């Protein structure tokens, strides 16, 4: 009886030592998964996911602290990609976010007072201008995050929806309802 307990106890301690050694030997530093998740996000840095930028959202996702359906500019495709990478269920975008339309910011020049508040707010430096000079948005760099709209004291920034253009047009998904005519 005593021998049994003793031998099993020794066996368990040996195993414990082995595991202890392995945990030191195979320690993991950092987290390459965060980089991968960050690369799936659209980098709009808009904060609509309630995180101050895309990288903090990626970090929270990897830690498992947050939902995967918070990214509005990313849309359904980003949610699907995140679900695959993180091995989670793909949840649809919440209703209030689903109606998001990609837009570009445009400054109405007659009202701009040159206060630089919008320039400081833009996370990707898409607004050109300086104190008391005209400000303007570089359309190619604007991600449509809308962070410049609240700080403007004269409310001279408009969010204009991006109209479909012949150069950005893509083929629609063919809808096949079996039994339908082509």
């Amino acid at each position: 009886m005593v021998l049994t307990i003793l031998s099993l106890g020794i066996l368990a301690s040996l195993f414990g030592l082995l595991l202890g050694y392995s945990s030191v030997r195979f320690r993991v530093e950092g987290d390459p998964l965060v980089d991968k998740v960050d690369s799936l996000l659209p980098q709009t840095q808009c904060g609509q996911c309630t995180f101050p930028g895309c990288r903090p959202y990626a970090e929270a996702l990897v830690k498992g602290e947050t939902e995967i359906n918070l990214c509005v500019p990313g849309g359904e495709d980003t949610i699907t990609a995140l679900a695959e990478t993180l091995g989670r269920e793909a949840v649809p975008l919440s209703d209030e976010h689903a109606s998001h339309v990609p837009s570009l910011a445009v400054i109405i020049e007659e009202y701009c007072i040159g206060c630089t508040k919008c320039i400081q707010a833009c996370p990707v430096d898409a607004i050109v201008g300086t104190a008391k000079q005209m400000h303007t948005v570089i359309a190619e760099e604007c991600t449509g995050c809308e962070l410049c709209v609240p700080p403007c004291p004269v409310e001279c920034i408009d969010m204009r929806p991006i109209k479909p253009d012949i150069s950005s047009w893509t083929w629609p998904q063919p809808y096949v309802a079996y039994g339908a005519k082509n």
Partner: protein
Amino acid sequence: MKEYALILLGTVLVNNFVLVKFLGLCPFMGVSRKLDTAIGMALATTFVMTLSAVLSYLVNQYILIPLDAEYLRTLSFILVIAVIVQFTEMVIHKTSPLLYQLLGIFLPLITTNCAVLGLALLNVQEEHNFVTATLYGFGAALGFSIVLILFAAMRERLDAADVPLPFKGSAIALITAGLMSLAFMGFAGLG
């Protein structure tokens, strides 16, 4: 020699652990959504099953039987399996963090995989010697891996296919598993 070949054939096809003995169904259903994850899981389980077959045989033969402590079999086998799985987890976390993330909770759940414990207990029941026990363990793992990988490939195709809404997801997967099991019944009587 022929005996060893028969053991392998038996465990991989005739008495496949998943489709005939119905052991290890949890990871079989849970990890088979993507082929890459399934291959990773198959390799991990093969390592765990083979090693646990060896170690549990040794523990049984040289500690439990001399001490007349067969009643502690389940306890000590689980101890052995848990240690092996912990070790495997650490190695995978280091070598492939992505696989570690993808496998998620299913990696530590290999501990409770009834195929692993079942394998160890079957080795005792069938009174295998050391070599036979190892081969039996390896064969069982091989059978598990083959079926898991095949099933994962089929599930990937099912995901892309036009399955009626009530059947999407687990439902059609279980039906497919049932059909696979029926197919493997065709191996009965072989060898």
